[in-house]
């Protein structure tokens, strides 16, 4: 009996699972960093501008839609000037009047395009256009106020919005979205010190729990946090120094569908900088203090001797002991004898004494 049963019930290896993989719809959520100051820097460096990036990005979105007709895209912008993170596509009120959307898009796009692409691309370009038009005024106001020098990016806000959007789509009972696989692509240009560490880490953990990979396309300077983000979520981190061939990156290395991930070797770097950043100065540090209550990381001891995150009061005695200048051992005599090697030794000892808390 078993012999007969085996013949029928045994599945051909690889067959059924791959068939499912071919049909699962997937959602691509793109988070685009539109910080105007950073874009200005990039453009001045002569590497890439927003317009070039957008044309590549739109082709990528089109390609994603071309993969499967039930595939979806969503686009968020992370921006500090115009209300922070913003949903660009899909528009919430868009469902009812696709006709008007199409008419607008006809102005922007060449009409010889596949219908779905035309509607989406047109709507994205319209929205970004209106967003960018409003930026100069706001920027001027901010600069006049005298606080335009350092503005925190709203990447974490956009990330959490994207995660909630994915969650909503995955929970939906629409049979078309059943088994919807999702991933997030961050196109980031800002430096690490503009990223709020805690909220970014929290969103990463959320993505990890939801099994959503976060791919990162980094322009400008290399980022340690985003490396950690993609590593923790089994995503791809790519730092692009020469963005001329951006479309090739976007359509290959950053184009691996979640259903293909078990099969394909991810083109990401394996040596990741796992250093954390100081909660006060936002700088990446090697050695620092850790609050024993909330594990918040500090590079300097705050003036009020309170943890900036959980506000627990640190022990004053301990703090004074920590702050005490390390006693330099009288090594003068030795130093004379063995000058070359000992000099280095003293330096290293001083350095480590500064950083390490003295055990109680």
């Amino acid at each position, binding site marked *: 009996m078993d012999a*007969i*049963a085996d013949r*029928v*019930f045994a599945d051909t*290896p*690889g067959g*059924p*699972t*791959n068939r499912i*993989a*071919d*049909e699962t*719809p997937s959602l691509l959520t793109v988070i685009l960093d539109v910080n105007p100051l950073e874009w200005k820097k990039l453009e001045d460096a002569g590497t890439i501008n927003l317009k070039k990036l957008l044309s590549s990005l739109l*082709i990528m979105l*089109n*390609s994603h839609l*071309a*993969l*499967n*007709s*039930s595939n979806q895209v969503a686009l968020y912008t992370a921006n500090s000037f115009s209300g922070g993170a913003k949903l660009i596509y899909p528009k919430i009120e868009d469902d009812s009047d696709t006709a008007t959307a199409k008419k607008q898009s006809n102005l922007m*796009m*060449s*009409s*010889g*395009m*596949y*219908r779905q*692409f*035309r509607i989406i*691309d047109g709507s994205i370009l319209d929205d970004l256009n209106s967003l960018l038009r409003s930026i100069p005024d706001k920027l001027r106001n901010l600069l006049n106020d005298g606080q335009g020098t350092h503005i925190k990016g709203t990447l974490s806000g956009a990330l959490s919005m994207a995660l909630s959007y994915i969650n909503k789509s995955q929970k939906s*009972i*629409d*049979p*078309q979205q*059943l*088994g919807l696989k999702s991933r997030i692509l961050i196109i980031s240009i800002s430096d690490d010190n503009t990223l709020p560490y805690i909220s970014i880490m929290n969103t990463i953990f959320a993505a990890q729990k939801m099994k959503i990979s976060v791919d990162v396309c980094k322009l400008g300077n290399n980022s340690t946090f985003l490396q950690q983000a993609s590593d923790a979520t089994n995503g791809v981190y790519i730092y692009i120094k020469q963005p001329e061939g951006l*479309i*090739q990156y976007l*359509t*290959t290395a950053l*184009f*691996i*569908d979640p*259903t*293909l991930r*078990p*099969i*394909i*070797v991810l083109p990401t770097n394996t040596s990741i900088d796992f250093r954390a950043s100081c909660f006060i100065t936002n700088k990446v540090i090697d050695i620092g203090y850790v609050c024993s209550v909330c594990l918040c990381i500090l590079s300097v001891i705050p003036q009020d001797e309170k943890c900036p995150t959980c506000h627990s009061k640190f022990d004053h005695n301990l703090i004074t002991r920590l702050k005490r200048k390390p006693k330099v051992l009288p090594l003068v005599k030795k130093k004379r004898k063995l000058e070359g090697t000992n000099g280095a030794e003293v330096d290293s000892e001083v350095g480590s004494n500064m950083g390490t808390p003295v055990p109680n």
Partner: protein
Amino acid sequence: MEDQSSELFKSTINEYLDNLPETVHTQLYKSPETCLAIFRLLPSLAKFYIMLLLFQETSIPYSDLNRWIKNPNMHHVNPNKIYQNESIKRLKSLNLLKDIRKRVVHPQTGQKTEIPFVQLNPIFRTSFRNALTGNSGKLSNLFDDESDRITIEFLDNYCLNKWENILHFMVGSEIKQLPSIGVLTLLRYSGLMELPSDHYTPDGSKSLSIDTLSKLLITQNGFQFLLQDINSQIWTLLLQYLKMSEKLMMNPVDVLNFIFMLGSLELGQGYPITMLSNTQIIMLEDLVDYGLIYDPGEIEGNSNRNFYPTRLSTTLTSESCNFKTASTVIDQEISNANSEETKNSSNQGSIIIETNFKIYCYTSSPLQIAVLNLFIHMKARFSNMVTGSLTRESVRRALMNGITADQIINYLESHAHPGMIKMADEKLSKQLEYEQSIGNLNAVNELKLEILPPTVIDQVKLWQLELDRIQTFKGYLYKDFTNDYEFEKLLNYGDEIGVITWKDRLRRKFFVTLEGSSQLIDYANRILRKGGNSGGRSMTPSTQTPQPQPQPQPTTN
């Protein structure tokens, strides 16, 4: 017969495309819409490879394709590799990938070696790039912004009426109007339906009058056809149409381009007929019959006629279309009319099946009930629901009609109520979490989404196995005994040495295994000579007309 029926449904559009000659492929790839449609039909990995090559101006080494593939276990056969080979084979059979051998000088040793390179079909590359970037100006002349657009609801109703009418005709329920002669001819040609006389003269190409064709009866293939989802039903018919059109000397490039173009048209938008070639205008009339296109006909005072693609055609190139069966949309219409609340819950599967084989289906469509009735023992019908159960008899009836267990399971799976899918999903993720927590990675790979209760699936498969219990033996059939004495004597001896596999005392026949036959002949010669009656006739296989043919031994219970 069995081979034929399975072939009918396996011969998907993919196989048809694969077998086209290269010149036809080249012609096809000139149209961006066709490229997009063909791209969607490829396996995921093949799509990835195309994206990899799409924006490369030059060819890349073949080994670059291999480098993307993971090899999870070094010593075993790599399933990923099999998948990769399949994908590349598909790409090559579609003439999308081309092998080039290039002479390359090794950078260190300076040796000249030949390395295989791959290149994307240049025509496909140009067209597909145009499709993605919107560079092609081809569709631009299609739009005429007429204000009297036909509403989408009208088109939905129109196409579903047409399509359901065809299906109703197939299941033999009462219909007001017969499908057109073109549809009936195609149904007969495709072997989904047949005339009683077709058993004797199976010639599907001969044209017959509508009166004769209205007497068509459903075949085994037809039963299987009914269990497909609407998209594959349409594709099945379209493929048959393609095959038929080849016989009618229509240009396959024109026909395919038209079908793929339909997939990229916009629902509710009119398109002028003047853009079509002559072949396509002939096709248009046939497609109107299937409900793929609405043609309002010649409008007075308006020389350029428009045609309207329906939802059936705009979802042709999508895998999961907007409605699984025509009946669900009818349900939607009814529920919309009744109340707005139910609007959200429409447009989805409706079958709940329990571990005790009871089935509940939320439907009021006579068609879906008729389809369910093919393999379910119906118990009761309510205003919006039918109940029934899968029984051995009902499933056997379906199996006898040529429906396979897999088809029943697939139908139930694809029409499962979202609640069932949700439950299965939750169960799967719980199991996954558990297996991962104990580190049982082999089990993780084997876990699958079980929408239907496994007991039901196994039982349906077992019921099919019951019918497949044919065992064959090679041996000899002994018959034409002159008297009872000879027969009984040989039969008893055969029984004693255990070589008889089958016997019929009434007709004096029995069947002996291959090995036992010589023993029995020796015995027969011995006793017949010893008895000496009827002049010592010797028993040899030739005189006893043994038939060395496998004798089917059906086991019934």
